């Protein structure tokens, strides 16, 4: 512990001495990253980068929203060099307070512009798609649009997770695109149709497997994740709404560099690494997420993003889910 403190003091001293001469940036030996992405998924990737770069990564794992609150609280004193978040909302909160340093063009250039903050404060890393998970033997007619879910054939069959961030992001998109009154009516119709609320996406998938419900709105990787966790195949598959339906919304995980960091170059190197083709391929095979790079294949047994046909929406709009929560409260789902 004391070593770290001394090292910190020493490197600060070194930094003050070297800031005058900009040409020779000090050799970075450590980088601190706050990660809202779970250790089980991301740690192997960090391991590779550490070996390649020779730079030690200090990773602080936590919940994306709580880490964002922590960075806001730390302000300019933040020990973090980078923030890797599970969702666009948490990145947007840091961006609003202007605590990120915008990335130059050329950094992470394989990632299409639509998946990043417009001023390049942060960059998208991977994508997840909203799907409906269902039991194929019980649901023979799949829904084409989210409105179909209010039909009698799905009565008492559908599950949602109203407290879940991904569901709320999806509902935010519905409000943004179709208006609040449409969203409200849709929720009320779902309620009338006997929709069941669960705590988490994974619990929905388990409930479908157990036969409690037959169809549920989740992210695309939960069927795979739950089956992995249970160690057996499950009676649940993914289904997609028709092209451009809001039910197929894409949300991204992303990364940004803190403006207070004095290790910008090393941090940029890590971002380039995470968005490189080789590593993006690895994300697809190991975490079952989508790569944002178009030329890279989708996860095994899943359609490509183009085939899914996600609705086009500015991800920045998904930041403020306050109205969404108010609506959920109003209709009595929260």
């Amino acid at each position, binding site marked *: *512990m004391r070593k*770290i*403190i001394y090292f*910190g*003091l020493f490197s600060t001293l070194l930094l003050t001495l070297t800031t005058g001469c900009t040409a020779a940036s000090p050799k970075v030996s450590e980088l*601190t990253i706050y990660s809202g992405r*779970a250790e*089980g*998924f991301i740690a192997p990737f960090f391991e590779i980068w550490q070996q390649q770069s020779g730079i030690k990564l*200090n*990773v*602080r*794992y*936590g*919940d994306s*929203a*709580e880490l*964002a*609150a*922590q960075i*806001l*609280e*730390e*302000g300019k*004193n*933040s*020990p973090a060099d980078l923030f890797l978040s599970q969702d666009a*909302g*948490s990145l947007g*909160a840091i961006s*609003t307070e202007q605590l990120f340093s915008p990335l130059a063009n050329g950094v992470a250039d394989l990632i299409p512009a639509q998946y990043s903050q417009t001023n390049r404060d942060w960059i998208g890393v991977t994508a997840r798609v909203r799907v409906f998970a269902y039991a194929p033997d019980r649901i023979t007619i799949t829904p084409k649009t989210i409105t179909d879910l209010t039909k009698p054939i799905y009565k008492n069959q559908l599950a949602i997770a*109203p*407290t879940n*961030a991904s569901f*709320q992001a999806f509902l935010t998109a519905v409000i943004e695109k179709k208006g609040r009154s449409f969203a409200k009516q849709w929720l009320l119709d779902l309620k009338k149709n006997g929709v*069941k*609320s*669960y*705590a*988490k996406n*994974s*619990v929905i998938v*388990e*409930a479908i497997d*157990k036969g*409690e419900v037959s169809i549920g709105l989740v992210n695309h990787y*939960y069927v795979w*994740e*739950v089956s*992995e*966790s*249970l*160690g*057996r195949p499950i009676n649940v598959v993914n289904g997609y709404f028709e092209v451009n339906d809001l039910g197929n919304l894409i949300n991204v995980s992303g990364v940004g560099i803190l403006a207070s960091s004095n290790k910008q170059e090393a941090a940029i190197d890590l971002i380039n690494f995470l968005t490189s083709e080789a590593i993006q391929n690895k994300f697809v095979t190991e975490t079952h997420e989508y790569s944002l790079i178009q030329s890279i294949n989708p996860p095994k047994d899943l359609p490509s993003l183009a085939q899914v046909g996600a609705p086009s929406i500015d991800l920045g709009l998904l930041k*403020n*889910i*306050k109205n969404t*929560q108010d609506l959920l*409260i109003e209709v009595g789902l*929260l």
Partner: protein
Amino acid sequence: MQSLKSPVKTSLLNLYQVKNRSNNLLLVLLVLLVVGLVLIPIFYLVTRASQKSLTQIQELLFRQKTFEVVATTSLLVLLVVLLTAFFGVLIAAGLHFVNLPYFAALIIVAVLPLAIPSYVFTYTWIALIPAFSGFLPAVFILFLTTLPYVILATLAGLRRVDGSQIEVARSFGLTHLQIFFKVVLPQIRGHISGGVLLVGLYTMSDFGAVSLLNVDTLTVTIQNMYRASYDRNAAAVISLVLVALSALFVVGDERFKSKTLRNKSIKTTSVKTYSINKSSYQVTVFSTIFAYAVFAVLVPVYVLLSRFISNPVAVDWSSLLSASISTISVALFGALIALILSAPIGALLSEKPTYFSRFTNRAILIGHALPGVVIGLALVSFGSKISFIYQTTFLLAFAYALLFLAKSVASMTASLARVPEGAKEVAATLGMNKWAVLKNVVTPIAAPGIALGTTLVFLTAMKELPATLMLRPTGFETLATQIWSSAAISRFNEAAPYALVLLLIAAIPTFILSRPDKADKPLSTQEIGN
């Protein structure tokens, strides 16, 4: 420490009082220091909340939603408190008075759930019953998690019950129940109320269970404000509502406690005066504890183990070991700091109650209802300005001490209240100064309460999550953070070994604390002879 200083014993009582003044000043300063530290989160909240304009604050406070949430929280607290008070006293009295088979196992099982984080508890129940959600399940889960607080506090009280009074009552032919309500209960009200206090404050602060079960309490609203709109100032306003609610609860609890009988004499021994062999009592108590063990220990352990067995992963022994060592050491460190911080508080509270001591007690208790994320952010806000302590084990241990100081103080006060005034005066006439009185008279009597408090801090610090996530040194993993990181991606099978080790570690202090042979003779005749 300091002993006899003046040979003139007749004037010693006067001297004691004179000396007390300078001692008092020191004590007051120390107490103020501790209170200042404890109030850091409240100070932080007030600062944050004051960033909002008055109209914004009014809007937040007087909207429909706030009323609903306050009502839900209050009802939740009320139900959990009533249930835990009833079953906690039943189980503790049963363990103490009724002759039961497998006594040691029963007592451990009755306290062990304290080591299971509420989110793990809830996850496992949801895994068993996916539709498990809503208000009543939340009451159920919080009842299960908090019951040990009342059991432990009541047990500590029962060990101090005057056995001779029970003998007298028996000779008058009172039934077991009559003895309990007329002789025992009045003596242990203070202890019960200490346990109930912790239950109520914990229930207010809990986030894990209520969020997973979809119940809208104040903590969920606070968390939503961070998550939904990243509005820290609005979250602070609602947090202050929670502080106000907990203040009401603390004052209510004081009323209840004030009816406790105070000891007037020094009790020399506390032998287990009688043990009931009636089978109806035995069956009732045994089956209650058994049911509790099934719901609160077997269900979580069964779900975790079955996940692990159905999909075994190679246990990472080195990470398990290092997480265990980290957990034990930082929790111990935290318990130690809490012990040190509570010493001046205990000294103050063992005196006759004054406005100042009442204020101190309340100041320490009300912050206890705040969810970990709020305390965590408050310490982030302060700590990040002092870079050499920020994200060190010291700051984390310190955070535990602040978070759980109420546990050691609440456990201590009931014991301290039982120190007879007369004993202190006698000691003073024997030439002891205040600190010597504290050391030689007060501490031995309060020892069980102090031990209980320190153990509670240790146990709860081990499972603490939100503040740990924010304040631990980067890369420092505890059992709780490891459980969380696996559970967050639905890998319960990977979380299982960590949760089970957490239970095993927790069983040790629980066992020591509740060891029946130890419990029966906290004040042996030899100790008195010293």
